[in-house]
């Protein structure tokens, strides 16, 4: 690991910059990304460096932007389409679900779609119901899409570089709260392959699986519990599709208990799917049900207190871990 610490948004910029430098077919379009450098400043400086052909502002036309990105990818270039909020990607769902995800199958495997949609989700700051969603589950369910959710600056860089070198449509989902977080990021070549999780904390008592903004929350909860002698392992899958099942199952085999933390609403989220996999493949290794700590089944409200109440906080994660630890066969028998 490098000594140098940079911000998540700088790491993203570095990835784009390096890949644009290395490959003239990488380009980026989005609302306000050129002149203005993007709402989160990820693309600052790229216009000056790579010019208006490869760094373009667009009108407010998400379906069109995503569509032309998919078309450009089919034609063999490597577009990055930045969508300001993942919520707005709903306008381009046809292009994602019916075109990008299906083109390879529909062409008998010949056609590929090296398309990267960068966007951000998550609640925070009172931006309300239409600007706060965590929608990874929608992409996760559509075969053909890769779903990437980096939680650290280093992964932001490494995963984005990988996204720009592979051949399938990638939903690259950042989190609005992470842009200003800092961490060590290797300079230059640093590529993180899809499908390999990261163990963020070693532990033996319980496995916590979390991604994106929830990783830090899980680590904070683990820290709290460590004071009580509870030893929590925290796994960050980094990419949800492909998912590092092996890492998750190996950890659960060791700890015999699992907690999954997601910011998205509980109903039909990715956590449910991971839980279904764990209980299926590790049923006889589990000492307790897989516990899910997730958002409420409700849109995110504007009021900041209620906003916080609608997505998992550190204490919710602590509560989930306690539940997973205490509802064992004996606890159940004792009830």
């Amino acid at each position, binding site marked *: 690991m490098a000594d140098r610490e940079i911000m998540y948004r700088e790491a993203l910029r570095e990835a784009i910059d390096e890949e644009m430098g290395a490959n003239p077919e990488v380009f980026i379009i989005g*609302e*306000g990304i050129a*002149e*203005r450098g993007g709402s989160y400043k990820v693309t600052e400086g790229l216009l000056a460096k790579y010019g208006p052909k490869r760094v373009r*502002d667009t*009108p*407010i*036309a998400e*379906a*069109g932007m995503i569509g032309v990105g998919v078309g450009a990818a089919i034609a063999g270039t490597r577009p990055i389409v930045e969508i300001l909020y993942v*919520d*707005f990607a709903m*306008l381009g769902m046809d292009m994602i679900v019916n075109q990008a995800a299906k083109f390879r199958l529909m062409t008998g495997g010949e056609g590929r779609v090296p398309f990267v949609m960068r966007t951000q989700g998550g609640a925070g*700051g*009172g*931006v*309300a*119901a*239409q*600007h706060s969603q965590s929608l990874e589950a929608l992409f996760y369910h559509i075969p053909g899409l890769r779903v990437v959710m980096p939680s650290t600056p280093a992964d932001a860089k490494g995963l984005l570089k990988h996204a720009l070198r592979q051949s399938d449509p990638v939903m690259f989902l950042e989190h609005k709260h992470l842009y200003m977080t800092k961490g060590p990021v290797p300079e230059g070549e640093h590529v993180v392959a899809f499908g390999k999780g990261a163990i963020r904390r070693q532990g033996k008592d319980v496995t916590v699986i979390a991604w994106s903004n929830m990783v830090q929350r899980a680590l904070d909860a683990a820290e709290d519990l460590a004071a009580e002698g509870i030893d929590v392992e925290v796994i960050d899958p980094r990419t949800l599709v492909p998912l590092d099942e092996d890492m998750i199952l190996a950890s659960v085999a060791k700890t015999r208990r699992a907690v999954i933390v997601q910011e998205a609403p509980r109903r039909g989220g990715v956590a449910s799917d991971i839980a279904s996999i764990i209980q299926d493949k590790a049923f006889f290794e589990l000492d307790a049900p897989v516990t899910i700590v997730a958002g*409420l*089944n*409700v*849109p995110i*409200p*504007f*009021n*900041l*207190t*209620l906003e916080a*109440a*609608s997505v998992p906080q550190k204490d919710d994660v602590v509560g989930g871990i306690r539940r997973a630890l205490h509802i064992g066969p004996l606890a159940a028998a004792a009830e």
Partner: protein
Amino acid sequence: MTKQKKAGNAPSRELLEKIFRTAYKIRVFETEGIKLYRQGLIRGYFHPYLGQEGIASGACAALKEGDYIASTHRGHGHCIAWGADVKRMVAELLQKETGYCKGYGGSMHIADISVGNLGANGIVGAGTPLGVGAALAAQVRGSDAVTVTFTTDGASNNGTFLESLNLAAIWNLSFILIVENNQYAVSTPIEEATRDVDLYKRGLAIGVESHQVDGNDPLAVHNVVFDAAETCRAGKGPVLIEAKTFRHMGHHVNDPGKYMPEDKLAYYKQRDPVDRARAALKEMAPISDDDIKAIEDEIAAEMAEAIEFSTKSGEVSPEEFRAFAANY
């Protein structure tokens, strides 16, 4: 909100005063709101309507009870022009349970369906299909209600614009689409977003009666909307109206708006719609400066009271919210 006579060349004192009051109230609301925002009391997004007051105030004065409006992310002005209680608006911005949406919605989502306000919207362009839907509902019911959707230059490049206006056209709906062309989408000038900046032409291309109007002239807006409403009620809708205008500041409170050319800004500030509404009232329906001052003071007091009321109001508790969520 009873139906107003068209201003024409001899507008009534009542109409002129109404338009001025509305425009001024919006101005005060936004100015005070920005202060609250800068104090950290309002959170999330706040897109001021400053500079565009002529459109909401002129247009809404041409409509009547039972009509519908749908708005944008820059929605305070439309809401006020539709007669909303500023108390409940401020309370909403302050996340209070006395707000229009109990503090669940915030600036981008204030709505009051009980009076036909379909609400602001955080998705650019979304108000258009929703408004067409209200117009469709009116037609199904056989009511003569007109629906106005306020939309934006940015939204005119979005697919919803074509799809919904076309639906309104083939069904001859009582629908008026007012494009507030303030010539920017955040920092992107309209010249970079489309080749032809005269957006009314997009209506003509699909057979929709379409007009262009100076959005900074409240009476001009009023007249064209008045006629459009008549056209609609005669079963000859929809009508598209492009109102050219300009913001007085950046896109939202935290946007310094440096990309806006100073000369252009000065040009539009010289044609300030609130000033023009005041001037029209003074010239066409002689009124003393004192009377104007009294109106302005009254509005300032109303706003001060709204802020006090809102500050004192409580917030929905997490328990109540969780109970609501459990049935969502």
